[in-house]
């Protein structure tokens, strides 16, 4: 069953077409990669899917619902959440609070209930705290929960971003270069974590990734963007040997690989 269907999505910034007529179907329960050289429009595509940008053309169907043009918070509430290419944590908040913020759409306490401190609110907060701790244990960060996010080491910040995204109980998680800037061991751990998202939590994963080893080991399907256009789609081995993909990458020079901004 298709969880997400992007149909002929185009995004233009003035004269620049960052995403050009991209169609993509994501099956529920799959792990899919989006790859492409720098500036190919991968992040922009994510931004369109999550409602940060409205598409210039095209429609997006999620879970049987047309979500084109909805606000980001509405889309998050429906079950799509994401991480950012350049980490965007709430730096002055603690690790635990970061996860609690991610839970916003799943909590329902209103202004007056909060002021009155009703038992419903207190029960909800307690449950939220417990769930946040559970998620932190899942990404192995529980011992750091009272640290400020800004004080975490880089790899931990990446994992916290994933935990924060998980807090919204998504059906689909979009990871924008989750292993960027990591050493081989951290990369292996991150790869493992991504697989556990699907295997243990049953969440569909779409990731943007430059590290070809990660892409090839983890993805069930791969979509390749170049200059905003989808130039290939298929199984990892098909993509590996696809001449257009090789050209897109080698044409840009091998330096484009893995080197992030």
């Amino acid at each position: 069953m298709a969880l997400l269907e992007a149909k002929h999505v185009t995004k233009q910034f003035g004269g620049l077409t960052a995403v050009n007529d991209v169609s993509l179907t994501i099956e529920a329960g799959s792990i899919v990669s989006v790859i492409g050289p720098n500036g190919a429009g991968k992040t922009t595509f994510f931004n369109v899917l999550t409602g940060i940008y409205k598409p210039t053309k095209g429609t997006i169907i999620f879970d049987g619902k047309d979500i084109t043009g909805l606000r980001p918070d509405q889309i998050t509430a429906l079950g799509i959440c994401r991480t950012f290419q350049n980490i965007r944590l709430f730096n002055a908040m603690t690790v635990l609070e970061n996860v609690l913020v991610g839970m916003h759409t799943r909590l329902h306490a209103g202004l007056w209930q909060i002021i009155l401190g009703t038992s419903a609110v207190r029960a909800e907060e307690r449950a939220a705290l417990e769930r946040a701790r559970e998620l932190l244990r899942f990404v192995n960060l529980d011992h750091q929960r009272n640290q400020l996010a800004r004080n975490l080491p880089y790899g931990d910040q990446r994992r916290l971003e994933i935990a924060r995204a998980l807090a919204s109980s998504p059906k689909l998680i979009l990871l924008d270069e989750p292993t960027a800037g990591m050493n081989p061991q951290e990369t292996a751990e991150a790869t493992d974590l991504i697989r556990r998202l699907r295997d243990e939590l049953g969440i569909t994963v779409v990731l943007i990734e430059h590290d070809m080893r990660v892409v090839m080991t983890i993805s069930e399907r791969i979509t390749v963007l170049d200059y905003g256009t989808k130039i290939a789609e298929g199984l990892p081995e098909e993509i590996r040997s696809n001449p257009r993909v090789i050209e897109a990458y080698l044409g840009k020079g091998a330096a484009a690989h893995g080197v992030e901004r």
Partner: protein
Amino acid sequence: MAADNRQVDQPPSFWALLRTTAGRGPAPYVLILAYAAIVSALLLFNPTTGLGTDMVVVLFLLLMFVIYRAPTMLAFKLTLGTILLAVVMPVFGVLNPFYIDVVTKAGMFAALALGLNVVVGFAGLLDLGYVAFFAVGAYLWGIFSTPQISNIVPGMEPLHGSWFWLFLAIGLAVGAFFGVLLGLPVLRLRGDYLAIVTLGLGEVIRVLATNLDRPINITNGAQGIKDIGRPPLFVEPVFQALGINISRVQEYQLYFYFLVLLVLALTVFVVHRLNNSRIGRAWTAIREDETAAIAMGIPLVRMKLLAFAVGASFAGTMGVIFSALQTFINPPTFDLLRSIGILSMVILGGMGSIPGTMLGAVIVTLLDLQLLPRIASELAALQRRGVPIPSWFDPAQYQRLLFGLLLIIMMIFRPEGLLPEDRRRQELHHDEPEPAPEPKTAAQVSESAQSAEG
């Protein structure tokens, strides 16, 4: 543990020693009680007006923050705080009416600053027009409790003072309404742009207050509104029964003192509850990273408007109280400088921090109303007695300069404010069942103390 070894290697500094000995066992109780007793005695047995008493009042108010931070039982803190604020201060206020006025104003500004702190400190929306909501509340009661109202609703009599209580709630609602109204046009703006537009909107309200005397005389223009109604006193019989004879003026002073204290306590309560809820977390998230906040499912528009509304509602209520307290209001009371004054309280105390904001409000108000004028008048007295201070130097003219210098020095040496927001400490108090993560060790304390000294 490693930390303990380090402590042996490195003799702890004086401050670390003081902290560890003063913070252990019965020591904090004894020290605080002694402090409270001395200050109370000084206030009650020497209620003169002068620089000395000024200092004692400052020490008294600082004591509140010492009690707040002290490592003692909550019940002890509450009891002592209540005795000091509800008994010592009012009695002193009866003996010396000057100071209770200042303390009431300090409480009023503390509540205002807390409201602004919701907008600026929590949600990170720099609002330079905050005093507009204070003005709205003040004019609301000012118009309805004076003959002004008959210009708007022909034939309507000024409301009796007993309506005041209802108007505290109406001021809250009208403040919130104006908060949303002035919030709507600035929703898309960030940072500098937001500051400029809110500054403009604040001025709009003041200009309206100045010019809405034509074609219908609503605000009475630049002359302002006088003889604003006051709530009826209801404790007079109690005083008489107790054989206490105080003037009506003093009774009103006590009345407003307790009212402001009550409203301030409610404000602290509400702001604290909100800050530790999903709403407060959403505000902080918006402050930290707007894009990430929306991506995490926070409805930006609703949360920003809520911040504006909550902040403005406190100002609305305080405006009602202010107009009844002063019995006279005019447009210059609500100028940009007032907004900036309240903002400086928030920044001085520590943006986002509830106790910090209150400390900032107390300090700025005391400096403004009491200490700086006092220093100026002492200098002027010296001048008259022939101390060689050049005659072109008029101390009264320079008190704002001193205030400005203080702000600059503060921002250079402690940009995060006097009592900055401390999210980590908050969290430590939250989860009791788990073994709490390491408390600050003595070695760390001495380190931070040293870095503070160096």
